[in-house]
């Protein structure tokens, strides 16, 4: 029964496909999977927008939206109707074709990322050997769409936002990739289902998730920082920067195109949380061996929603960084630490089983964190601000 519930979507698909002639079955199966992804994640997006607003409200001691439907749960329906009925304004001097394409490129690229994510046991649309590579290739396309939007709008705020976005996303893309390379070094595979399978083992009831190793914890924290920057979430929301740049690269978007950008941003959040879950948090595997009877997809979505909650929590807590702080942080602190983490991972791999590698790896990482933290916190370059011309 539990096994059936775990595989219920696979069984449902196979049952539906069974009505068709054998030649059409594989293609139809994929189409059904695509339909499921295209329905489930935007639905989750709708729920997340209202939960984010309510959560932020609670963080600021407010009530949050509670007017549309019970507890304000139908708020996304009202928002959707509003954005559909709004006028779609395209600036006269904008490059209309690129302006039109940018949100589509974003949404399509982000949807492609879900193709390789293992949502549950056997529940992956395309079991690619280089799934991780595919994911990052698709993730890089979102930068293109952001720059298309900023460039084609012909608006200084859009362009500034796009420039910031490209600088930020490229800087943190390096970190994001290198922090996931550690996982690939240990699991020895770029295929995401294989990475999850490697973590789906238990010792004394506890799982073999990579976050429960020194390099895994460090890697996960770096990944979380880079993922926040990659999805342009606060405190790295400089590309949008509504207090400085109106709305950044989507200043000139209205109506449903704006809604598509919004959707794309949230879907990118889901996909990057899903990848983080897959790489470090054991994907769809249960947190304790006695909980393995709970369907795997519940664990996956539970972990993703927990990550989303942390995203919202961070947004409610931290103020926005300055551009130079952002860049210094990426290149002078996070990137060296990521490279060190790769070395530590190699050490972990070649020191073999035993307690020694735990001690050695933990000491190296903690010492490096403390030393680099001290260097970063030195206040020598802070002082009274001097102005060259404005005195």
């Amino acid at each position, binding site marked *: 029964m539990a096994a059936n519930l775990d595989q219920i979507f696979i069984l449902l698909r196979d049952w539906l496909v069974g009505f068709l002639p054998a030649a059409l079955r594989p293609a139809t199966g994929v189409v059904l999977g695509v339909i499921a992804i295209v329905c489930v994640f935007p639905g989750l997006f709708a729920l997340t927008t209202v939960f984010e607003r309510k959560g932020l409200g609670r963080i600021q001691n*407010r009530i949050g939206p509670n007017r549309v439907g019970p507890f304000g749960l139908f708020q996304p329906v009202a928002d959707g109707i509003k954005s559909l009925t709004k006028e779609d304004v395209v600036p006269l001097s904008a490059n209309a074709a690129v302006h039109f394409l940018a949100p589509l490129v974003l949404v399509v690229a982000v949807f492609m990322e879900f193709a390789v994510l293992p949502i549950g046991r056997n529940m992956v649309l395309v079991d690619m050997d280089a799934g991780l590579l595919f994911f990052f290739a698709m993730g890089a396309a979102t930068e293109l769409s952001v720059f298309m939007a900023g460039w084609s709008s012909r608006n200084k705020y859009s362009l500034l936002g796009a420039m910031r976005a490209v600088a930020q996303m490229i800087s943190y893309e390096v970190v994001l990739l290198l922090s996931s390379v550690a996982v690939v070094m240990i699991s020895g595979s770029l295929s995401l289902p294989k990475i999850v399978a490697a973590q789906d083992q238990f010792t004394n009831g506890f799982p073999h998730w990579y976050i429960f190793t020194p390099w895994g914890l460090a890697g996960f924290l770096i990944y979380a920082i880079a993922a926040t920057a990659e999805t342009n979430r606060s405190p790295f929301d400089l590309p949008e920067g509504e207090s400085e740049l109106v709305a950044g690269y989507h200043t000139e978007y209205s109506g449903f195109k704006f809604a598509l950008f919004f959707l794309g941003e949230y879907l990118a959040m889901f996909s990057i949380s899903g990848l983080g879950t897959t790489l470090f948090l054991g994907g769809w595997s249960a947190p304790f061996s006695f909980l393995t009877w709970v369907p795997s997809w519940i664990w996956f979505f539970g972990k993703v929603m927990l990550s989303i909650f942390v995203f919202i929590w961070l947004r409610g807590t931290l103020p926005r960084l300055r551009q130079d702080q952002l860049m210094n942080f990426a290149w002078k602190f996070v990137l060296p630490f990521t490279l060190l983490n790769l070395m530590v991972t190699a050490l972990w791999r070649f020191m073999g089983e035993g307690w020694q590698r735990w001690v050695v790896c933990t000491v190296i990482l903690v010492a490096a964190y403390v030393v680099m933290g001290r260097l970063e916190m030195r206040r020598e370059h802070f002082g009274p601000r001097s102005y060259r011309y404005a005195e």
Partner: protein
Amino acid sequence: MLGDGILKGMAETAKNFFLSYVSKERLTTVEYPEHRIPTVENARVFPFLVYDGADWEAGLRCVACQICEKECPPKCIYIEKSTDKKPDFVGKQQFYPARFDIDVSVCMSCQICVEVCPFEAIKMDTEFELATDDRFGGLLEDRQKLAKSNEYYHSIHPTEATEVDARLAEEKAKAEAKAKAAADAAAKATAEASAAKAADAPDHAQPTPKPTAEGGS
């Protein structure tokens, strides 16, 4: 240590998040149309015209001097002076506004009209729900819409209204005293004149007695 500030901040927001479900005192906002915070006494939104007594048209304090119209920075006041006169609160014959319009959409709530008015005739209201679905007629308030009783003024700005009433009463007393003094002086003059007349004609009856009580100061 690098990063402990972030942890401290996140602990603070987590505390807000969970405790706001537990204690209602933490919630600083009210759900507006159902619950309202009473407006503070010094609130000001939009001017209104004060009238005394029961009849708004007869009791309007405004004498159509048009100072507010001239001082209004965004020029949202329009006044037409009447051709006839009616007595004001001290009984003096004054003009009154035949038309007095204020455009809500232009008014910037600066209160300059209130400060320049020498007759305490225009004051600031605390009513803020001025939205209307008629953006031309609905936003142009005429003198009937603007007229509000002195009792209403007392109910929204009690301290200020009491001061204003005291000042007006004093002014009225002064005016009455002046009028009385003038009347007395006139009476005295006529009495003296008649006395002189009587002196000129001694066969006339007794002179009128002099007024005993002098009017106040």
